[in-house]
C-alpha cells in the first residue's frame, strides 16, 4: 500500500501543477472600494445617507469574505459568501454595511428602538478575502 501511494505521489503532484497553471487566476475586475466614503453609520441623527456599500469585481467565481477591523486589530464585522452565491460569482458586486458592529452591544431605547453599537469616528480597515487569501484591502472612514 505504501509503495502504491509513494508511486502515485509524484504523478499527482505533477498533474496538480499542470492543472493549476492552466486554471484562470482570480483577479479584481473592479477595485475594492466603499461608497460613500466617508460615511455615517445608522445611528446618525441627521443626514439621509447612512451606511456604506463595498464594491468589487471578480474575474471568476470565488468564496468571498469581507472583513472589517478596528485599528487595534479587532475583527468587528465579517460576512462570507460562497462562490455559488450572487456575491461570489464573476462580475461586479456591492455589499452593504450599516456601520453596526457584530461585536457591539445592542440596547433597547425607551421608544422601543434598538440602538446598536456602531463604528466610532475614524478610519477602519476592510479586507476582501477570496478563497482564503487577501485579494484587496481598503481603508474606510466613518465620520458623523
Amino acid at each position, binding site marked *: 500500500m505504501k509503495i502504491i501511494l509513494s508511486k502515485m505521489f509524484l504523478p499527482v503532484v505533477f498533474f496538480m501543477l499542470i492543472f493549476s497553471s492552466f486554471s484562470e487566476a482570480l483577479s479584481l475586475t*473592479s*477595485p475594492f*472600494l*466603499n*461608497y*460613500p*466614503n*466617508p460615511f455615517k*453609520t445608522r*445611528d*446618525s*441623527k*441627521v443626514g439621509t445617507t447612512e451606511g456604506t*456599500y463595498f*464594491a468589487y469585481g471578480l474575474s471568476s467565481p470565488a468564496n468571498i469574505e469581507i*472583513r*472589517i*477591523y*478596528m*485599528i*487595534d*486589530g*479587532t*475583527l*468587528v*464585522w*465579517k*460576512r*462570507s459568501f460562497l462562490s455559488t452565491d450572487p456575491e461570489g460569482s464573476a462580475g*461586479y458586486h*456591492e455589499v452593504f454595511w450599516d456601520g*453596526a*458592529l*457584530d*461585536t*457591539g*452591544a*445592542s440596547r433597547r431605547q425607551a421608544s422601543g428602538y434598538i*440602538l*446598536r*453599537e*456602531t*463604528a*466610532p*469616528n*475614524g*478610519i477602519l*480597515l476592510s*479586507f476582501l*478575502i477570496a478563497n482564503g487569501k*487577501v485579494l484587496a484591502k481598503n*481603508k*474606510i*472612514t466613518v*465620520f*458623523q
Partner: protein
Amino acid sequence: MKRISILIVSFCLLSSAACAALIPDVSRFAVGARTIGLGRAFVGIADDANSIFYNPAGGGWAKTGSLVSTATRLMDDTNVLSLAGMFPTQYGSIGIAYADYGVSGSFVTYRDAVGRIAVDSTREGMAFSGSSAILSFSSLPFISPFSPDVKATLGFNLKMFKQSLGGGTIGSASSSGIDIDGGLLIKPSEWMRIGFSALNMLPDSYNQIGGANNWDSGEERKEGIENVIKAGIGLKIPSSILPRGMGKELIIDADLDMFIAKPHPALLHIGTEWWPSDYLGLRMGFDQDVASAGKTDSMLVASSFTYGAGLKFSNFLFDYAYKPSSLADANSHYFSISYLIPTFAERQVIIAMEPRDRTITYKPSVLLKAKAPSKVAEVRIGGAAIKTLAGSFEMAVDLSIGKNPIKMEGYDEKGSNTASGECRVLRLVEFSDVPQQFWASDSISHMATLGIVSGFPDGTFKPQKGLTRAEMVALLIRSKDTALTKPSVNVFKDVGRQHWASQYIKASVDSNIVKGYPDGTFKPSAGLTRAEAVSVLVRFGDVSDKDPVAAAAYRDVPANHWASKAISAAKQAGILSFVKESTFKPSRPVTRAEACEMLSKIRFISNRTDLLLNFDVGY
C-alpha cells in the same frame, strides 16, 4: 476597602452608557512588547512601567523607576508609539504614559456615470490619528484589611485622550475626553501577587466630568470608551525555588477581562516569562479577544498564542513580541526599549548599619543600629516605635531561630510613612560543645536550625557520641517532615507503642527506609556502624547504587563487602567527602557529627539548606 470596591463597581455599572459607539483604548494595543509576549497578562505581575496600562497599583511595589518606549505597526497599517515611565517616590509611585497612533490613506469615493464606485482623485486622502496621556499614582504598600501579614497597593490613572480626523470632504475635526482607571495589587507572599483593575470607570453619560470622547464638529458626536474589569494572579518564582539548572526566574500570570456594559464573554490571558540567564528572557502567551462570528450581533472568542524575547544589558532591556493576526498579512511585531532607573528607591531607604542586611548570627538578639533619611522622625519595627536622632536610631531586637525579617518603617512628623528598610538576619542554632572551627559545625548548625536534629538539655550536641538505630531513624523521618501517627500495636517485638521512637520507626518502615530483623526485632538501642548508616542513607536519599565504580572505593571496603555498592555510590555522590583517608573503617560506630554531615549532602536536604541560606526567600 469594601467601600472602594463598591465605588469601583458602581462606576462601571453606570458606565453602561448611552453612547452608540466606543473608541478603542490605548491600554489594549499601545502597550510594551513584554506584555504582548505575555499574552497581555500583566494585571497580577504589574512590575514595570507597563503597569500603568494594566494595573496602576503596580507602581507602588517598584523599588526602581523604569522607562519603556514601544513601537509597532498594527495590521500593517496603523503606526503606534508609546512611552511610559514609573518613578517611585517617598509618597508613592508616580507614572506618566503617552501613546500616539495614526493611519492614513483612506480616499473619498463617488459613483461614476455607469453607477460604479470609483476613487475621487481630485480630493486629498483622509488621515486619522489619536493620542492619550496618562498620569498615574500608586500608593506605597500598606497593611491590607485581609491580614496583617499581607500588604497591598492602590493606584489610579487619569487619562486624557485626543483624536483627529481630516482630509477629503471632512476638512478637520477633533475630539477629546478624559477617564480614570483604578487598581489594587495584593502581595500575599514573597512571590505571589493578586491584582484587580477597573479601566475607564467614568460613566460616559456624564459629559461634564469625562468618560466620553466628544467631537467638536460634524454632529458633535459623543463616543464612549470601553470599560473593563480585570483580575489577575501572578507568580514570580526566583531561582532559589526553581529546580537546579532551571534558570534565574520564572514568571507566570493569568488574567481575566470582564465586561459589564457589553455582552462580551470573559477573556482569558495567560503569560509566562522565563529567564534562563541574567541576560535573556523568553516569553509565551495565550491571548483572547472578541471577534465577529459573521452575523449581526454575533461574536466569538478568538484565541491566539503570542511569543516574545527580552535581552538585558546593564540597565537596558530590549524586548520583542510577535502577535499573530487572523489575517496572514497582518501579524504584528512589537519592539520596546526599557531603561531601569536605579536611584529612586535608594533615596528613601532605611539602611541597617549594624548588623548589615543579610547577616548570619548565632546570637539570640542584636542591637540594631540604622540610618534613615533625615525627615524620618520615628521608626517602627514590629509593634515597637523609636524616635530617631537626625535619622539615626538603635534598637535591641530579639531573634528567633531561623529567618528574621526586621522590617523598618519610617514616619515623618506628620505620621506619613515616608521610608522603609529591611534587615534580614538568619539566626543559626549553636551548641556549647561544637565550636565554629569543628569540622562538621556548619552541617550540625544547619540541621539543627532546620529542626532535623536537636541537642541535649544542657546545651550540648555531643558530636562524638554514637548513634543508635532508633536515633538514626528519627533523624531521617524528621528531615522529611513526614506526618507521624501513633502506632496502635507494637511496631516490633522490642519496640512497644510507648517507645520514644515508635512513631518514627513505624513511619520509616511504612516508607520502606528500614527493615527489622528476621526474628521480628528492630534492636532500637543497638549502635549503628558507618557501613550501616551509609547503606540506610543511600536508600533514603535515592542515591543510585546501580552503577558504582568498578574499583573499590576504600582500601578496607573490598568489592565483596556487603555494603561496598552503597559506600561506592555514596562516595560518588559526594556524601562521604568528609572522609579524607584512604580507609573508611566501615565497622566503626557512626557518630552524631558524621551522620549530620552525611545527611546534609543528601540532595533534598542540601536543597533545604540552600533555601535556609537564601536571603531572597522567606523574609
